């Protein structure tokens, strides 16, 4: 499924930068003997940007190149935006022998989370997407009969995942869009750390940060207002670790944001309770999965789920 890259950003990157003026930052960073390098690009169906700081610009560039390579490897395994990814091939064939490690890691996490949430999080909701997308194109909602038929193809127990082979029951299609951006943040960050980068900020659609801004101030993360485009609802700072946001506004099918790209696997409709959820966690994969699960579970059950995860916290924004 290709979707246009017109995602409104959940979180506004290193938003402190806009406030002070880049020149002042560069001066203060230079005092500390640090330079920073940023590389932007496209990936995972959105814009991505990797920032790293350190004393040696050559080492920074090398680390960022490796970071992008890690991102491409995750894309090649689990992106639905690439028709040649392992996941796309799995969906077409229903079976994939010798799947890449990234895909196994993503899918194993997805199935574990599905079990823990009693199926509220479900990686097999992919068939709902074309149904809703097409209906929205006509200006309506899917026919109830078509929706019922589609629901029969959904269920996380229809997926058998092992390191040697992944098998889907006939008609099943898997999406990892709820996890892959967070997972990519993990992988990129791991590569940067291995290269000895102590200060970095990673935006793969979800966010990860380590250390501090080269000028010595902490990284800060603005959380977008789910209703007012471009406005910041809250600022997380100092920010280290990982954060992921799920919202009803990314890819809304209806102007009131009632129908959007997150589905309740039991009904085939979008969950009604929340406008957006931001989860901070020690890993991007965990943060990303929890934020989507919380959207489906609602505030009460979602809060309970997050409370059970070490080092995690959630912020909820109700629908107006």
């Amino acid at each position, binding site marked *: 499924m290709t979707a*246009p890259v017109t995602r409104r950003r959940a979180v506004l990157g290193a938003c402190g930068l*806009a406030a002070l003026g880049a020149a002042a930052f560069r001066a203060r960073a230079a005092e500390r003997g640090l330079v920073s390098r940023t590389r932007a690009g496209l990936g995972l169906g959105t*814009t991505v940007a990797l920032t790293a700081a350190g004393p040696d610009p050559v080492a920074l560039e090398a680390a960022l190149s490796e970071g992008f390579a890690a991102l491409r490897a995750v894309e090649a395994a689990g992106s639905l935006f690439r*028709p040649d990814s392992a996941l796309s091939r799995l969906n077409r064939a229903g079976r994939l022998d010798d799947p890449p490690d990234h895909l196994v890691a993503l899918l194993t996490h997805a199935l574990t989370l599905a079990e823990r949430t009693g199926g509220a999080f479900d990686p097999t909701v992919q068939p709902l997407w074309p149904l809703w997308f097409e209906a929205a194109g006509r200006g309506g909602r899917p026919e109830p009969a078509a929706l019922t038929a589609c629901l029969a193809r959904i269920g996380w127990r229809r997926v058998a995942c092992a390191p040697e082979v992944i098998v889907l029951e006939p008609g099943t299609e898997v999406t990892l869009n709820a996890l892959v951006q967070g997972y990519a943040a993990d992988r990129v960050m791991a590569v940067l750390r291995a290269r000895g980068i102590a200060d970095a900020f990673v935006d793969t659609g979800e966010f990860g940060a380590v250390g501090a801004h080269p000028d010595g101030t902490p990284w800060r993360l603005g959380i977008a207002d789910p209703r007012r485009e471009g406005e910041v609802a809250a600022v997380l700072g100092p920010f280290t670790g990982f954060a992921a946001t799920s919202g009803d506004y990314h890819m809304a099918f209806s102007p009131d944001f009632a129908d959007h790209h997150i589905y309740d696997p039991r009904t085939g409709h979008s969950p009604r309770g929340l406008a957006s959820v931001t989860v901070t966690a020690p890993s991007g994969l965990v943060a990303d999965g929890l934020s989507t699960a919380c959207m489906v579970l609602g505030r009460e059950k979602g809060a309970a789920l997050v409370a059970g995860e070490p080092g995690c916290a959630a912020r909820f924004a109700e629908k107006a």
Partner: protein
Amino acid sequence: MRGPGVLRSGWAALLLVLAAFVHPAAAGELTRKDIEKNFPPPLVVGERDDRLPVWPILKQQAGSYEVFAYAFESIDFAPIPGFGGTPPDLLIALSPDGTFRDVKVLSHKEPVFLEGLGSEPLFAFVEQYAGLSARQPIRVGRPNARAGGASPQTTVDGIAMATASTRTINQSVLASALAVARGKLGFGAANLGLSVQAKPDLSEKLSLDALLARGWVRRLTVTNAEATKAFRGTGVGDIGEGAPDDALTDLYVALLDVPSIGRNLLGEARFAALMRELGPGNHAVMVLSAGPSDSPENPLGESFVLGSVPERIAVSQGGLVVNARDMAVERRGAGLAEGLPPGDWAILRIDAAAGFDPSAPWTLTEKIVRERGQILSEKIARDFSVETRLPGELFTKVAAEGEADWTESWRARWPTLLVLAAMLGLLVPVLARQKGLVADARRFPAFRLAFLAVTLGFVGYAAQAQLSIVTVMGLVRAVFRTHDFAFLLYDPPSLVLWAFVLASLVAWGRGTFCGWLCPFGAMQELAAFLAKPLKIRQIAVPPWLDRPLRLTKYVVLAGLLAATAAGSPLADPVAEVEPFKTAITLSFVRSWPFVAYAVGLIVLNLFVYKGFCRYLCPLGATLAAMGRLRLLNWIPRRAECGTPCQLCKVRCRYGAIAPTGRIDYTECFQCMDCVTIIHDPGQCVPQVVARRHAKRIVPRPAVAAR
């Protein structure tokens, strides 16, 4: 004497060697730094796409990034050869909604702009694309077409004298933008590099009704009532004079290159003719208007221009309009074929490069335009469309990867190649058999003049196969810099000629080309022949001057090659020492200094025979230098040659015979004059003398030494 078989296998080997060097397509060369120069901050050049040579240009917004444009080089996606075979390279920025942000010329070799017009009109031409949408076909109109009322959304103003060049540029822009749009913007299927062709042997006899029933021929009928309904609320009055249920327009739509459709609709003969004209990989869409033909709504009626991209009908796929141009097939009477309803019709050609996939659903859209208001009328348009879905089994899909476009130009030019081969096939035995036509002092000069006329008219003007030092420079450039030899393949006649010339060089030396196959050389010789009645006296260049002048051409050549290898911008202007482009390629239609130079050389030739060839020509110098590889001393000599006989030396118009009688093959143009003399007992002095001495002395036979 080596037979022609050796020569032929020589060409084959050369072609193979060249093919081994050839890259599948020319590739863009811009680095990240170059791209950053074109998209300066606050724009950010993102990481290059890992699958397509496309750079995302990003804009930072509140701490995160948005896509501003996709930047790419047209040559990576649509290397369409321009004048002389070199594809233009354009830097194109396409915004995410499919409109052009910017188009810039990176490089081109279009002579009409490089000299004469200058590059400014070209730069102004490509600026017109900014703001236009790649979703629509864009046509090159006449100069000032937009001011003259052509749609500014779908027309760019053309440039007088540069129709062919602007069309190449337009095609490069559209085809590359389409490929990127399909690959990056998610328009339609990502069928980049995919060629989908109808299976030629799959043909079924079907009536029009059966075709309609299967949906293989589609019908787009708009009734008066439907049109009225579509324009409701726009302030346009009722449409059509007839009853509400009468058809306002009625179109039959069919993809003709599918044999089960085209053969049944057109009949065997016309289908075969169409397929021949269409060429493999391209597609033909028939649109037949069976509605009221005199209605202003008839899209193929009076407003339709033969051979144009129709204004009111469009073929689209996946939300993108596909460039479809009327083939201007001969209209014989009103009807297209028996069994089809009468009416106006058009056959639209879709180029293989358009990325059109006939096995996927495609749409024909008809635009109905109405005017609102009486005085300051305003045009209001409504679209009506019909979708065609053909079964995939009708087609074969070939991933076109690795197959470069150059095969097309070889297929398209086979008649030229055939004539060229015939010419060479005639020339070789005539030159090789010295006691044949060459020995005939009366008929051989006539043959020579006729052959030179064909060299000038056919090789030069018709086939545009004047070999040039520019090609040698291109080779040097490829060896030292680009490593891309593909440019050679786009000009089949020249390549064949090069192969022949290299082979003849090894056998006979430079003369075969310089004396027989160089169109400018032929032009000089014919001019000199025509000037004979003028009684112009040739100026004899004294040896002390002749020798350094001969060396001049090597100096010119060395300078040119050095400048080229070093990548100096001087190389191209210095190459203008060669007047071939002016005289042959551009037929003297060029700015006056160039014309004066070329004409001057021809006038010089009347006084100093082939002065340019002997003293200046860098191509001649190249061939003369390489001619040292020559295997044969093919001009027969006698012991008396030089001592005492000086006849051939005096008669040689090229000064290629030393007073000793030795032949200087690097200066020999293979005119055969001396060979004719030596085989003519009435001219060859030693033989004449021998005959006078009656039968006592047996004439020594002429021997061609190896």
